C-alpha cells in the first residue's frame, strides 16, 4: 500500500470513519491521500468534491464496464464528496458483509432504476460484459432466459430484490469478484 501521508486528518475523524465503514485505518488514510491529490488544492477535504469523470478515471475503475453505474449509485448530485468515496470503498472492501454488497450490486445492475432487474437491464448487463459489436439477438435472449429461469421464482420476468438476494447467496463467486482496491495508486 505504500506510505500514506497522515496530515490533515484528525484522530477523532479517523476513529469515526473506522467505526462507520468497513475500512481499516491504513486504507482510509490511503484514500484520503488519493483524494487530496485529485481535488483542487487548498480546500478542506470535507468540503471538496470530485466530479464523476475524475472518479471514473481512477485506475481502480478505469477498465470496469460498470463504472458509470457505480458512479451514479454512489454519488450525490453527480459529485463525490470525500465521504461518498469512503462509502464506495467500504462497500467494495474485502471486509464488507455480504448483505451490503448484494444491496449495492442490485442498485448497480438496475439500469433503469425501477426497483427491479428486468429483461432490459439484463440485456444491458450482458452487452457490457461481452463488450463486442457482434452480439446476436439469439444469444442475448438465450442468456436472459436462462438467468430468469434460474432466479425468477415468481415468474414475472423480473428479478425483485429478494430473488436477486437469493441468487447471490447461492453464487460462490460473488464475494470474491465484487471487490475493488481503491488504494495504493
Amino acid at each position, binding site marked *: 500500500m505504500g506510505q500514506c501521508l497522515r496530515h490533515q486528518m484528525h484522530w477523532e475523524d479517523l476513529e469515526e470513519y473506522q*467505526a*462507520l*465503514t468497513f475500512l481499516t*485505518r491504513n486504507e482510509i488514510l490511503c484514500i484520503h491521500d488519493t483524494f487530496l491529490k485529485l481535488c483542487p488544492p487548498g480546500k478542506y477535504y470535507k468540503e471538496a468534491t470530485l466530479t464523476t469523470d475524475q472518479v471514473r478515471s481512477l*485506475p*481502480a475503475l*478505469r*477498465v*470496469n*464496464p*460498470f463504472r458509470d453505474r457505480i458512479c451514479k449509485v454512489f454519488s450525490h*448530485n453527480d459529485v463525490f464528496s470525500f*465521504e*461518498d468515496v*469512503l*462509502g464506495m470503498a467500504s462497500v*467494495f472492501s474485502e471486509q464488507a*458483509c455480504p*448483505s*451490503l454488497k448484494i*444491496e449495492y450490486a442490485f442498485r448497480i445492475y438496475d439500469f433503469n*432504476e*425501477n*426497483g*427491479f432487474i428486468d429483461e432490459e437491464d*439484463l440485456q444491458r*448487463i*450482458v452487452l457490457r*460484459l*461481452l*463488450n463486442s459489436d457482434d452480439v446476436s439477438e439469439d*444469444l442475448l435472449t438465450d*442468456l436472459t*432466459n*436462462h*438467468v430468469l*429461469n*434460474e*432466479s425468477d*421464482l*415468481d*415468474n*414475472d*420476468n423480473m428479478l*425483485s*430484490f*429478494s430473488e*436477486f438476494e437469493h*441468487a*447471490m447467496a*447461492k*453464487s*460462490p*463467486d*460473488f464475494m*470474491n*469478484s*465484487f*471487490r475493488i*482496491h481503491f488504494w495504493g495508486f
Partner: protein
Amino acid sequence: MSESSASALPPGRRSRQPFIHPENLSLDSSGFSSPPVNFLQELPSYRSIARRRTTILSRDKQSGTLLKPTDSYSSQLEGGITENLNSQSIRKYALNISEKRRLRNIQETQMKYLSEWDQWKRYSSKSWKRFIGKAREMTTHLELWREDIRSIEGKFGTGIQSYFSFLRFLVLLNLVIFLIIFMLVLLPVLLTKYNITNSTFVVIPSQDTDVQCTVYPISSSGLIYFYSYVIDLLSGTGFLEETCLFYGHYTIDGVKFQNFTYDLPLAYLLSTIAYLALSLLWIVKRSVEGFKINLIRSEEHFQSYCNKIFAGWDFCITNRGMADLKHSSLRYELRADLEEERIRQKIAERTSEETIRIYSLRLFLNCIVLAVLAACFYAIYRATIFSQEHMKKEIDKMVFGENLLILYLPSIVITLANFITPMIFAKIIHYEDYSPGFEIRLTILRCVFMRLATICVLVFTLGSKITSCDNYSCELCGYNQKLYPCWETQVGQEMYKLMIFDLIIILAVTLFVDFPRKHVTNQFPGEMLLVTYCSSWKLIQCWGQQEFAIPDNVLGIVYGQTICWIGAFFSPLLPAIATLKFIIIFYVKEMSLLYTCRPSPRQFRASNSNFFFLLVLLIGLCLAIIPLTISMARISSSKACGPFTNFNTTWEVVPKTVSTFPSSLQSLVYGVTSEAFAVPFFMIICLIMFYFIALAGAHKRVVVQLREQLSLESRDKRYLIQKLTEAQKDIKNRLDWQ
C-alpha cells in the same frame, strides 16, 4: 429444477407468460397513469423488504422511482430502525456516511435511557468487537506474500490467484508439520547430543534375533572421489545417510528428564499420526466452504448463469490488457455454455443404435486408457528394480553420469510418463463424444490418477523388493537384510531423490523452456499471428507463448506434497525441504508468469478451483496413508538401525505402551477397540446417515412445491392488478362521461 435438460425449461414449471407491457395499461396523459411497476412498489411485500434494506433516505432523483416516502413515513421507518439498533452494527446499513452518523448519534442518546448493566454490556461488547477488528488487522499484516498475491489477482484474475493461494497454504502446512516433528522428535535428540539431558540408547538385541539382522555396513571411507560428495548430496547416500535426515540416525530409546522418561519411539510414531491427522483436518476445514456451495448447486446446472453474469466480472481488475482478456474469456465461456446445452439436447435425442455404438466405442477407449496406464506402471516397476539392483555396485566402478542416471532412473521414468500420458488422454477423449465441460473434467481426473498412482507403484515395488528374499519368504528377519539392512532409510532416500528431481525439473522447465520460448516469440512476431489463427493446433500452440496451465501446475505441486507426506516418516527433515522447495517454486512461477506467460483464454473460476485443488490434495493424502499404514503395521522394522529395533513392527510400540497403563484404563482401551463396540457404533452411524439423507430428500420436495406455489401466487397477483387497473380505467371513463 429437475436435471433433465432436454427442453430449455424444466418440466413442471409454467412456461413464461408474456408480461403485460406497461404501455398497454397506461392511461391518458392526464396524470392518472399507473404502470404496474409503481403498483408493485406499493405492495406491502416490497415495502417491508425495503424497510429491511433501510433505503429510507433516498437521494433526490428526478427520474428515479426508488422508494420516495413522505416525511411521516420516513420517521416511521427510522423508528423501525432504531428498534433494531441493538442487533446490527451501524456499518452494515446501506446508507451513506452522514446518515449513519445520525443513526449513531440517535443510538448514543438512546443508550442514556438504559440501565447501568445494559450500558456496561453494550460498551463491553463494542470494545470487544473493536479489539477483534484490530487483532484481525494485525494478523493480515502477517499474512505471507499478501502483496504479491494481490498484484497477481489484479493482473491475472482470481483463477490464477487461487493457484498461488494454494501454494501458500502448502508452505504453511509443511512448516507446521515440520514444527510438530521438530518438537516431538528432533528436540530431544538435540538435547541429548549437547548433553543437556541423559538418555538411554537403543539396545540392539542379540538373543532373540539372529546376529545377521543387525549387521549394518557403513560405506568404506577410503579414497573418495570428489564427485561422490555431489552424488551423495543428490541421492542421500554416503555422508548424508547417517545424519538426522534419515530414519537410521534415531537410535535413542528414552530421554531421561527429572520426573519421567520421554519415550522416543512412541513420540516418533505419534508425530507421524499427528501430522497426518492435522493435514486431514486442515484440508477438510478449508474445503468445507467449497463443498457446501457445491451441495447447494447440485440441484441446478453445474455452473449457473446467474453466477456467470452477475458475478462474472472481476471488479478488482485494473489492467487494460487483462480486462480485454476477461471480456474475451466471458464471451468464450458464455458461448461454450450455450453450446453445451445444445450438445446435451443432441445427446438426449440419440437413437438407441447410436447409443450402443457410442458406449462400445467408449468401452474400447477406456480399455486403451487402462492399457496405457498398465504400460506406464510396468515401466516404472522395471526401472525401480533395475535401479535398486545396480545401485549396490561400488561407486568408483562407474562413470559419474551413468551413476546418476541409475540412481535417478525411477524419477526420470515417472516424469516422462507424466509428460506423455496427458497428451494421449487428450487425444483419446475426442473420440469419446462427451460434452466439452465433461471432457475437461474427465481428462483432469485421469491425469490426477496417473500422477498419484505412479508414486504408489514406486513405493509398492520397493516394498515387494524389501520383503522378498531370493525365492523364499524372509523368515530370518522379516525383510531382506542382505540388500536392505536398514530399509526405512533406503525408502527415505528414494523419496528424497524424487523430491530433489521434481524441484530440478520444475526449475529447468521454467528457466530453459519458458524464457527462451518467449524470447523466440518476441523475435518472430509473425508466429503469434500463426498461433492465434490456428489456435486449435496443439503443436503450433506448443511453440507459441506459454499459457499458464493451471491444472498441470496444481498436479505438480500435489505430487510434491504426496511425496512429502509419504517420506516424512522415513526422513523427518523432508517437510523442511518441502517448505523450501515450495517457497522457491512460488517465486520462480511468479517470475515466469510475469515475464513469459499469457493467461489462458479458458479461465478457471476461483470458487470451483479451490474446491478442485483441495479435492485433489485430499486424494493425494489418502493415497499417501496406504503405504504408510502397510509399512508401519505389516513390515518388520529393521533390527540394525532406527528406534524400533526392539519391536517387531513399528505399530507394536502402542500396545506395549497401553500395557503400562493402570488396569482400568487398559480395560477401557481394549473395550473401545474391540468388535463388541465397533459393530454397534458402525450401525448407529449408518442409521444417522440414512436419516439425514431422507431429511434432505424431503426438504428438496418441499422446495419444489413451494416454488410451484410461488409462481401460482404471482399469476394471481398479476391478474388482480390487471383487473384493478381495468376497473380504475372504467371509473375514470365514466367520470369523464359525466
